Each structure stands twice: as structure tokens, then as C-alpha cells.
């Protein structure tokens, strides 16, 4: 009896995005499956200064948080602007996709996306300079993410006279 109308079933905020982790160990099918059952979210566009406590406070509004892993610069081992949030249940993670994604944390609009699950090593940035790839190439100045992008910083420094 309970006819479900496709047209009324829209829940677009919890849909899986186009992003796929290129370092994922397994085939595309396995990755899709994990994404569809995951309780873990990738959280991006954080300030380098955003703390685990702040992430916990915000994401706890959607349910009990199992753990948070703050993303680190591979070389400096300092926060580099992303993290993983794992919930105990998928339903709670879905609510985060619906109600936390696209809102502000630490004055910045943050973005959440499904993650196939945390594995050791994934907490490190994959950019050449140690941070996230996006911070390698960006041209804008973002004081909460180390200022200019790394490439842009190099260009700026080559413009100055040699200092050694």
C-alpha cells in the first residue's frame, strides 16, 4: 500500500558526489559500495586553526560522533584544513550531509562528502608541499590556510632578490 513516489523521495543532499579517492585500494565497484554504506564523512575547507573540539561540537548536533581524525600536513604534522568525522550510524552521517554541509564552522563554509572509511595514512595531505593538493595550486590569499597557495608562494619568493 505505501506507494513510494520517486518524485517525492528526493533526498539530494545525501547523494554521493563525483569525487573518488584516486588512492583507494580496490576497484570502482568496491569503492561505490563502501561509499553507500559509510558512516564516515570527509570534511573540507576547514581553517588550519579549527580544533577537534569545534568539529566535535558541530557534528554532534547530528548524532553521537565515534571519532574525529584531523587532517595533517605530511611534513609538518600540523593541521592542514580537513578532517574525517565518523559516526556510529549512517543515519546520523546523513543528517550531517543534510544540515551541516554548506554551513559555517569557525566562520568558514565547510563541505562534507562521503568517505569510504578511514585508513592509516589517509590523514595526510597529498600535496607536494605536504598540505592538501588544493593548497598547492590556488591563487587566492587565505590567511586561515597558510596565506597564498604553495605554487603562488614560490612564484612570489622567486620575484624577491636572493636572500642567501
Amino acid at each position, binding site marked *: 500500500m505505501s506507494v513510494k513516489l520517486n*518524485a517525492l523521495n528526493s*533526498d539530494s543532499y545525501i547523494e554521493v558526489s563525483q569525487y573518488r579517492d584516486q588512492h583507494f585500494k580496490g576497484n570502482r565497484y568496491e569503492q561505490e559500495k563502501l561509499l553507500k554504506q559509510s558512516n564516515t564523512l570527509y570534511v573540507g575547507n576547514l581553517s588550519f586553526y579549527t580544533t*577537534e573540539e569545534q568539529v566535535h561540537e558541530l557534528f554532534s548536533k547530528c548524532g*553521537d560522533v565515534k571519532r574525529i581524525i584531523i587532517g595533517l600536513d605530511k611534513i609538518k604534522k600540523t593541521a592542514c584544513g580537513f578532517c574525517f568525522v565518523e559516526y556510529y550510524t549512517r543515519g546520523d552521517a546523513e543528517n550531517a550531509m*543534510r544540515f*551541516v554541509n554548506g554551513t*559555517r564552522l569557525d566562520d568558514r563554509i565547510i563541505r562534507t562528502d562521503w568517505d569510504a572509511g578511514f585508513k592509516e595514512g589517509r590523514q595526510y595531505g597529498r600535496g607536494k608541499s605536504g598540505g592538501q593538493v588544493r593548497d598547492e595550486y590556488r591563487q587566492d590569499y587565505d590567511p586561515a590556510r597558510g596565506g597564498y597557495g604553495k605554487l603562488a608562494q614560490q612564484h612570489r619568493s622567486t620575484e624577491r632578490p636572493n636572500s642567501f
Partner: protein
Amino acid sequence: MSRRRHSDENDGGQAHKRRRTSEPIEIEDRLESLICRVGEKSTSSLESNLEGLAGVLEADLPNYKNKILRILCAVARLLPEKLTVYTTLVGLLNARNYNFGGEFVEAMIRQLKETLKNNLYNEAVYLVRFLSDLVNCHVIAAPSMVVMFENFVSVTQEEDVPQVRSDWFVYVVLSCLPWVGKELYEKKDVEMDRLLSQIEGYLKRRVKTHVPMLQVWTAEKPHPQEEYLDCLWAQIQKLKKDRWQERHILRPYIAFDSVLCEALQHNLPPFTPPGHMPDAQYPIPRVIFRMFDYTDAPEGPVMPGSHSAERFVIEENLHCIIKTHWRERKTCAAQLLSYPGKNKIPLNYHIVEVIFGELFQLPLPPHIDVMYTTLLIELCKLQPGSLPQVLAQATEMLYMRLDTMNTTCIDRFINWFSHHLSNFQFRWSWDDWADCLTLDLEKPKPKFVKEVLEKSMRLSYHQRIVDLVPPTFSALIPAEPIFSFKYGDESGTSLPGYPVSITVSNAIKNRASNEEILAILKEVPNPNQEDDDDEGESFNPLKIDVFLQTLLHLAAKSFSHSFSALGKFHEILKNLTESDDGKLHILKVVYEVWRNHPQMIAVLVDKMIRTQIVDCAAVANWLFSQDMAHEFTRLFIWEILHSTIRKMNKHVQKIQNELEEAKDKLEKQQHKRRDSGDDEDMEKNSEEDEEGQLEEQIERLQEKVESAQSEQKNLFLVIFQRFIMLLTEHLVRCETGSVDISTPWYKNCIERLQQIFLMHHGTIQQYMGTLENLLFTAELDHHILAVYQQFCALQL
């Protein structure tokens, strides 16, 4: 909404090309889409769209009649905010095809029976309302609708049924009248008068013990918080007085009157309300939330009065829109703001009132709290020139009325406001609230500001809050969330535990084993022990203190560091907390070191429960202990308690599910064995083995469930006992001292007791017998007993 559009060309994410000869599935999807979308923004008028759609559907009836019936029944149930659009559509179809109209009515009746059988009472209301509006569309004959209403109201004559059952049937009838009252009175006024008089009699004798527990404010001014049936009755009375002139509802069928009145009508088949079943779950009563009236919206259209039928219809529709679109905040906000007829009402005020009404609803909001925060943010984005002002006005009003606001609602207000501010750089005119600074800090207003600042700090950082508020607010600023290490400073060196704390600290830093550390801890003198006692495993509070303080100090950097520490030294911690005294003491130490960082206390307690270092009852006892009395009214205490209860409930649920799964598995195995007939002996033996194993597993799980339920019951008993002790003490003290009992502490405490019942009413239901026999007996002070009685009244 599905991303699919009307036209065949544009097709979501499908890779293949659409075939020219459309497949049946595609036609069905298209029909669904067409029907669901009618009434939305369009270049053509609603009337012409309905006309067009009726034509299309009529043409498709020969091949797709059943699908169309199902879709129409579904939208009747799931899109009540578009009720009149779809009744008009059905009216047009009935005018073109009498048989189809009859089949639709039959399908609706079948659906109504199903929804009632499945306890879907809210959806059943929408179905009945749909049927009643079909009278306006000449699909259903008015007299037969009156007969259905008469059958519903006759439920009020039933004996020995829960009041919530007859409540529902009365509610359904009354709530249809704004739509169909006029038509029914024109045709059958004598019968309708009799009906209303019966309802009036019922409403007079109804018991309303539950009302105080469900009111957001206890004050009658400025807006009385009325019981929902009382309010609806007043609205219908006024509508009747106005001779059923109702001008708000959008009625597309009026434009088609000439076509529709040519149609033949159907009689509703006689419908006997299904009898009461013991497992029926009728909706619990509600109190209508009111915060605005016409004086609050100074410019523009006038807000319909609280007892006008218009107010009822507007609020119903807005609630329905939220119910349909809550998962997609942008769509939800857009749909709310494009409410038909919005130019005649102060829509922003209605929206804000309905949203806060849901957020503050007792016992629980219909949807998760955070949804309302993000919905309001979306609304502010879409109406930046007007909505933020209404929201600010609402916030100001809520602040002004804090003194009589239910504590649970204040909690939600605190959480909403701090989260909302964090999305807008915490900009607020704090000076406007300087009046709270002259009040005792335990009074609702300063308490509210203090809690808001604390929550705001959690979403930012301490200095931000200091910079945010005027210096006059310094007493309300939260403490800096830093660790308090008793062995850390000069005065610490003279403490008895100091030397061992240094040794332990070094041992931990040098990665000593658990055995080595336990050996070090053996050196800690036991302040509780006599010299000639045996060195047994008796509870040594100093040992716990030294180890835990030192460990948590080393791990103070972040949550992760502390969790890691708890994990690494789990063995030692379990060893130290074997006794109940040990468990209580570990909680005391956690509080002592992190008393300025309640958020950290909460996450540590959570971890310790999950890793079984402490149990739920220990946490409850700790929160109610004398040591914590000075923190008793702070929000974090109750967040910890409710989180603890939830963990307990989830734990029981989990094992119950495991038991069910095992039982299902066994059943399947047994079926398989029976069906497989004569197999080889070998196979039969292994199957029997498997079954035996399953049976053993089920027995074990059964025991586990019983033990978990026992723990759960015990937790509630502990909590209620503690409440009763505290409240009784206070009441007796006040009485003997001839002092007014209504202190801020008392209001907080009694409402916290209410909150336990409200937030966990589903679980507590199972233990009612024990509660009544052991705790909530007639000897109890009537103030405390009243809370219990109000709770019971929710189910009557």
C-alpha cells in the same frame, strides 16, 4: 524534488538515450512527475494546467488506470499542502469518467483503512480531509460525508477506550470543517448542529491533566498556550459564527464550477471506525504554540487571529510543507516562501512561528533540532531584507519570556541561538540584554546568556567570546577551558600523592608497561585504610586520583590524546574502578581536573561508558551526588545524563535486535530442514548442529537482553529516586520554613524531572508498573506526583 523535468529530453543522470517509443516504466514515471508537479510555479495558470493534466490522464486511463489511481491516492496522503489542487483534479476526472471517480473513492477508503490499521494517524487525517474536499468538487455527496463524520463522532460514546482515541476522531472531523463546513451546513445543517453539539459535550468532559507538561510557557500572557482541541474548537465556533465564510483556502475548483456541477456524485460507502486495539498508538495530545499576533507585524497584511480558521489552515499547510521537504533545506525554504496566498498574510511571521513551534514542541520536535537551524539560515538567505529582522524580533521576544519558559525549551533555544550566531560571526546586540546583569545568576535570563556564551565558545574559542561581549558581561563569560592539575603547581608539591604522580608521569613518558605502573601505584597510601588492614583490593581514592590526574594531564592536549590515553591504560583503569566506589571516584576526578571544560567532561564520560570503565548507574549517581549539587542547574549536566540514558537504550535495542536476528535465522534453518526432506545423514547432522548452536546463541542472547533490560530499569529507578529525594527535601524545607517553594532551582529541578519522562517516554512506558508501585505512590508530595500523573495522561 527529482531533478527530472517534464520533457522527455532532459533526463537526470541516465547515460542511455531515450527511445522514441516510450517504455511503460518511463510512461509511469512521467505520469508520476506530471501529477506531482502540477500546481508548482508555471508560465500557465493553475486552471489551465489542471485542465491539461485532466485531459492527459483521461487519455491514459485505458492503459494506466491502476497506476494513476495509486499515484493520486499517494499524493492525497503525502502532499496535503496541495490538497485542493488534487481534489480539483479528481473532480475534473470524475466529471469526464464517472466510473473512475467511483474507483478512486473506493481506493481511498481502502487506503484509509490501511493507514488506521498501521497507526499512521496523521496521514489518515489528510485522507479524510481529501475526501471531505471532494464534496466541494462534486465527487462525493454531502450527506454521505456527514454520515462518515457521524460515525467518527460516535466513537466518543465508546467506553473503556483511551481518551487519545476519541480525541483523534473528533480532531479529524473538526479539522475538515474549514474546507467543507459551508457545503455540509448548506445541505445538512440539522445533522451538523447535532454533530457539533455532541463534540462540544465531549470536549467539556475531556480530561486535560497533560496540558501543563506540554506547554512551552506557563504564563497565560501574552498568548495562552492552548490545548490543541480547545483551540480548534474555538476556531470552528468562530467560523460557524461567520457563517462558514472562509477566504484563505485556495479553491481551484471554483473556476470549474460549471463543469463540476454537471458531474454525478458518489456516495461514500458506510465506514465504521475500526475498533480499538491494545497495540494502537494514537497521536499524543499537543499544545498550540503561539508567539505572534497582529500587533507584532506592524506593517503589511494583518495576521489572522489565534481563533480564526485561517490561522489553522495556514499553520497546517506550513507544517505539511516542512514535513514534505525537511530533508532538502533549499527546497523547503523556497516552498515555504512561495506559499499560495502569501500576499494576504505576514508570511514571514507565520513561518517563524511555525518553525519555532516545531523546535519547541513537547515532548519532542517532529524533526531533528539542527534541521530547523539550517532551515532558518536558508530562509534568511532567500529573504535577506525581511526575514532576519523577524527572526531577531522573535529572539528578543523569546528572551523576554524566559522566566516562564519550560526548561527543556530553554535548552533548545540555547542550542539554536548559539549555533545560529556561529553562522553570522556571532553578531548580536548584547547590550540590549544588559538588564540580565542585575539579576541573580540563577535566574532564567542571565542563565540563558551564560549558557549561550558557553555554547558559542565551544563553536569558536575563549578569547573570541571575551572580545564579543561588553565588559559588563564578564560574570557571564565562561571560564577558560583549561586543565586543573593539583600536582602541577607549587602548592601541589606538599600533597600526599605528589611523589607518586611524578614517578607515574615519568613511567608513562618512558612507555612503562601496565604491570610496572600498577606496581608504582601500590606505593600510594590509602587514606581510607587502617594500618593493620590487609593490602587487599579495597578502594583507594588517592590511587585513582594520582593516576588519573597525571594521565589526563599528559593527555590534555586534545580529545584524541585523552581517548588514546584511556585506551592505552584501559586495563589499569578497569582495575582501579572495579567497585562502585571506584567508579564514582573516577568520575569525581574527571570533573575535578576538567571542571572548566564541560565539553571534555562529557566526551570522557561517554568514552568511559562505552569502554565499560564506568556504568550508566554510576554516572547517574555521580551527577546527583552532593559534590555536583552546585552544578546541578547547568546544561552540561543534563546533556551528560540524557546522553547516558540514550546509550543505555541503544545498548538494549542492539541486543534485542541481535536476538530477533538469531531467532529469524533459526526459523529459516528449521524451515529449510523441514523442506529438504530425506537427505543424507551427514547433512542432517551438520544442520542439526547448526541449529543447536543457534539455539544456544539465542539462549545466551535472551539472558543478555534480560540483563540489559534489568540494568536499564535500574538506571531509571536510580534517576527517579534521586529526583524524589532532592525535591522532597526542598519541599519539606520550604514548608517548615514557610518559604515559597518556587525558587529558580526548584523550577529547574521539577522541569528536569518532566524532561526525563518526556524525552524517554517510549522506554519508560515498559516500567510504569514498577514506577507506580515503588516510587510514584500516593504518599509522595503532590507537586512531584503531579509530574507523574501528567505523564500518564499523555497515553490515556
